[in-house]
């Protein structure tokens, strides 16, 4: 069986699943839950199996042949713009498809347990399937426009799922915020595509298809747009789109709010897959980014700064999901740091390992939240390791992976990035600074993640009774389901939840061995499979990078040293966090008391939301009202004034008509009548009077005649 020929089923099956469950949900038909489960999980599992089949078939081909375009039907067919609904199946897209459908399937299974008591059960699975469809379209698309369909499609699903419990107003508002902030990125993305298209037109090859772009994009070299290179402008415009989708500075603000959605959604969409779309896009367009040193530096800088910035906010958050959200923003920063250093395969590698351990962390958090009866505040947790052992151990494994401890997944991917950034510093000293930021972020990550672990799992349990339930704090609070069946003490969750946690934890532990760094691979005789696999996609590397690899292989000792360094600082961060948050909480308390201002600033996320609100949203709303008033008063006022003038002029004309025109007519009539009246008097009816008049007339005539 040729799996490539049925690759259309990969996105189509989840779409059908979404349609079925959507129909069930909105038509009000009563069905059994297991039918929903079978449709939802079955469709995505089938996609995963087909993807595995394609992966196997690609392996049978030689590396150069592993890029296959499958065309389904023509979409646009103008003389310049040609685009098909077609899939580009290559090493990069199949990796993404495997991650999306694989992790997606696990999270579908997890949701069976998590969403069990919810009223909108089939609606939830419908949205989740729809998301998988959109995300798979995004990664499989063979041109920028079709990719944009998936790009916005995932945004729609994100909107629907963040606002899943829409009767709670903040949830609905968070969904709206996510969509609109993403749209700001899309605005830039569209412009980027347009510039790219017409720039290529000017050199004779207008196209939006990736394979053709890759072929012709080098023609743009040296083309200017004002003082800037066209390629740089395009790269930055596309990258701003990526900052929206992948939650980087300055458009990251929607992601923490997006935690209002159900926790499986946070795991799948807002951690493992959708938010990595921006990273994927840069990976897909790597040939373009490689051409612009400036654009790469900007991508790397934004990534590194975001990594540190988000990590600092993570220090002061008390909501377990918010901590993970900022950690996601921070880790996405690392991916962009990798992309911006043009080590694309390392960036994608971190994307994959991050998908494993961050999904595991979010799902673990979800398990904790269920166990704690929808409590998200870490202050009110503690000691859960005794109550929820599976959740604890899987969460711990994923946290260690995230912190970059050898030999877990995060270690390999993060160190690969940091090491390459460091070795690029020799060419461009900026990268030394970025490396420093990256390491600082890594220490921060280790610290705040173990702060989270300590507060949640260590120490002793604070029961909910100790605290008054504060609705405003709990984002998940709209999720008011009947959970009286839950025992009062926290308890491990059902099998569908724990089994998924275990699978993801195993992936978090072992996932890193796909991409052993060269220095370590030499020892065990294992090549870097991951980089090797992706190499043809990123083949258009320029010579400098080959140098980079030379350094990487030649200076093994520095690499070991850096690895040792970053692991030891991470370990230090871990122990510090555990020590502070389990043994010496008083130190933390006195510290925050001492630096109250700083703490408030960080706790409130540097007031970025408030600043945006003040700078952008309020003026916009004011402008709207102003324009509305202008529209009514000035423009419509003018129209109405015209009408009023018309009426007035009509009145004047009417008066004129009545007074002068009709008046003149009447004057003539009146004169006739008056003169008639006067003349009437001579008509007396007496023959004598007439005789006198005739006589008088005759005399006049005679006199006139004689004279």
């Amino acid at each position, binding site marked *: 069986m040729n799996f490539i020929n049925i690759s259309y089923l990969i996105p189509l099956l989840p779409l059908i699943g979404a349609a079925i469950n959507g129909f069930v949900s*909105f*038509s009000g038909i009563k069905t059994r839950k297991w039918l929903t489960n079978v449709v939802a999980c079955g469709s995505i599992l089938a996609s995963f199996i087909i993807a595995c089949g394609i992966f196997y078939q690609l392996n049978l081909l030689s590396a150069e042949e592993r890029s296959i375009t499958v065309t389904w*039907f*023509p*979409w*646009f*067919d*103008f*003389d*310049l*713009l040609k685009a098909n*609904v077609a899939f580009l199946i290559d090493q990069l897209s199949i990796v993404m498809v495997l991650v999306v459908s694989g992790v997606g399937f696990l999270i579908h299974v997890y949701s069976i347990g998590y969403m069990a008591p919810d009223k909108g059960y089939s609606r939830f699975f419908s949205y989740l399937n729809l998301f998988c469809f959109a995300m798979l379209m995004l990664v499989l698309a063979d041109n920028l*426009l079709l990719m*944009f*369909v*998936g*790009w*916005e*499609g995932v945004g*729609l699903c994100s*909107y629907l799922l963040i*606002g899943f419990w*829409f*009767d*709670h*107003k903040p949830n*609905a*508002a968070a969904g*709206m915020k996510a*969509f*609109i902030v993403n*749209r*700001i990125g*899309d*605005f830039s993305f*569209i*412009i980027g*595509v*347009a*510039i790219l*298209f*017409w720039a290529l*037109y000017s050199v004779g090859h207008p196209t939006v298809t990736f394979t053709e772009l890759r072929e012709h994009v080098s023609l743009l070299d040296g083309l200017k747009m004002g003082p800037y290179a066209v390629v740089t402008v395009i790269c930055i415009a596309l990258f701003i789109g990526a900052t929206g989708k992948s939650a980087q500075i300055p458009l990251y603000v929607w992601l923490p709010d997006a935690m209002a959605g159900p926790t499986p959604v946070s795991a799948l969409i807002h951690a493992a897959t959708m938010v990595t779309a921006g990273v994927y896009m840069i990976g897909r367009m790597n040939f373009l980014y490689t051409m612009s040193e400036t654009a790469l530096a900007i991508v790397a800088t934004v990534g590194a700064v975001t990594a540190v910035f988000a990590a600092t906010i993570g220090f002061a958050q008390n909501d377990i999901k918010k901590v993970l959200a900022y950690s996601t923003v921070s880790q996405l920063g690392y991916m962009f740091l990798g992309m911006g250093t043009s080590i694309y395969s390392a960036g994608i590698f971190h994307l994959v390992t991050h998908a494993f351990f961050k999904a595991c962390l979010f799902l673990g958090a979800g398990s904790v939240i269920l166990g704690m009866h929808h409590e998200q505040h870490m202050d009110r947790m503690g000691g859960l390791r005794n109550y929820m052992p599976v959740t604890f151990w899987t969460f711990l494994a994923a946290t260690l992976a995230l912190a970059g401890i050898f030999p877990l997944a995060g270690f390999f991917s993060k160190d690969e990035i940091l090491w390459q950034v460091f070795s690029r510093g020799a060419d461009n000293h900026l990268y030394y600074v970025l490396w420093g930021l990256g390491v600082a972020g890594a220490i921060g990550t280790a610290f705040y993640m173990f702060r989270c672990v300590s507060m949640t799992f260590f120490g002793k349990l604070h029961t909910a009774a100790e605290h008054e339930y504060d609705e405003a704090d709990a984002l998940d609070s709209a999720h008011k389901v009947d959970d009286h069946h839950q025992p009062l003490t926290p308890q491990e969750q059902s099998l569908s939840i724990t089994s998924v946690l275990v699978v993801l934890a195993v992936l978090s532990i072992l996932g890193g061995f796909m991409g052993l760094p060269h220095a370590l691979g030499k020892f065990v005789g294992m090549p870097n499979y991951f980089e090797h696999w992706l190499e043809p996609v990123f083949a258009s590397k320029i010579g400098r990078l080959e140098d980079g690899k030379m350094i990487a292989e030649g200076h093994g000792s520095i690499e070991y040293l850096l690895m040792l360094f970053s692991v030891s600082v991470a370990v230090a961060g871990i122990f510090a966090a555990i020590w502070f948050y389990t043994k010496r909480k008083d130190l933390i308390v006195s510290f925050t008391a001492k630096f109250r201002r700083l703490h408030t600033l960080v706790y409130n996320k540097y007031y970025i939301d408030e600043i945006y609100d003040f700078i952008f949203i309020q003026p*916009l*709303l004011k*402008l*709207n*009202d102003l*324009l*509305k008033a202008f*529209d009514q008063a000035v*423009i*419509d006022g*003018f*129209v109405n004034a015209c*009408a009023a003038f018309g009426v007035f002029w009509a009145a004047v004309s009417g008066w004129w008509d009545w007074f002068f025109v009709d008046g003149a007519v009447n004057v003539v009539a009146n004169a006739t009548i008056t003169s008639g009246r006067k003349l009437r008097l001579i008509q007396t009816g007496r023959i004598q009077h007439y005789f006198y008049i005739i006589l008088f007339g005759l005399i006049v005539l005679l006199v006139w005649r004689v004279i």
Partner: protein
Amino acid sequence: MKGYFPLFLLLQTGMTGVFVALDFFLFYFFWEVMLLPMYFLIGIWGGPRREYAAIKFFLYTLVGSVMMLLVMIAFYFYSEGNTFNILTLMDQSVHIGPMTAHNFRLLCWLGLMIAFAIKVPVFPFHTWLPDAHVEAPTAISVILAGILLKMGTYGMIRFCYPIFPDITFEFAKWIAVFGMINIVYGALCAMAQKDFKRLIAYSSISHMGFCLLGMASFTNEGMNGAVLQMFNHGTITAQLFLIVGIIYDRVHHRDLEGFGGLAHIMPRYAVWTAIAFFAALGLPGLSGFISEALVFLGAFKMWPWYTAVSVSGVVLTAAYVLWTYQRVFLGKINEKYKNLPEISWRETVTLAPLALIVVILGVYPKAMLDIMNATLVGINQLFVK
């Protein structure tokens, strides 16, 4: 009702006639024929300010008609063989006398453009539209937005473009500028509205701006986008007005602040609305995206800056559409409306075909593009120097 349907059918005659006429006189005749029933339909079956709205609509259009009439007469006298035939007039060699002089041509072009601009409506001739929409009954709003507005843009492409290609090309910049203003200004005004129907009327103004921008592009992509946008606006805005009508029939007000949580009470209605709303904000996969993307891509070639400003319309549109959805459908249930009946079969049957078209054209736009591409390429050829 006895009066309503004859007038409605007369309106249909007028509209169909306008789009099939190939003779300027006939075109003008139908243009006027459609005006009269509209006046009565709004004036008799409309809302509280129906008389004001009906007269405003009628007179405003009539101002344009007068200009069109004058230009038409000029065509008759200054063409070889004194003809009203549009196809003949497209041949520049039949133009004689003053019709070959630049300034006179400009004057004629402007007369036609303003007549059509009022109908589109182009800023600043747009204020009759919100009033007419708000006062008109639902079905008439649908016709007004879905078909009548297109007579304006159709007229521009059918008359101004092929008969005055030189003037059109010279002043294309202004078409693009007004397109941009329509898009951004309409969206900003829509965001400020408190009345559901007024909001959609302004969104209509914003969406018609895309047609102008696309028309000003002189690329096949942009022109096709513009005409497809005309069609899509017809299907999408028609749905939007039907949706307002459905809720107005139930609660008899349109105040956006007065709803809330309707998605709980009328979930199916919420789904149909979501489809129309997302189509309106240009979600890929639905037809609105195709036309907007084509317009942007096409127009960017000649007018990069105007297009860039116009693209910000997609952000503003998303903002007002989602904000509206949130205010009406999400949030806490308004206790007053707890027992509203769900969308009926009759209402579903009016929405479903439109939604289906929106989805089909979103996935397979070639179904429509193939039909019109040949004509538009022909018109476009006039501008390829």
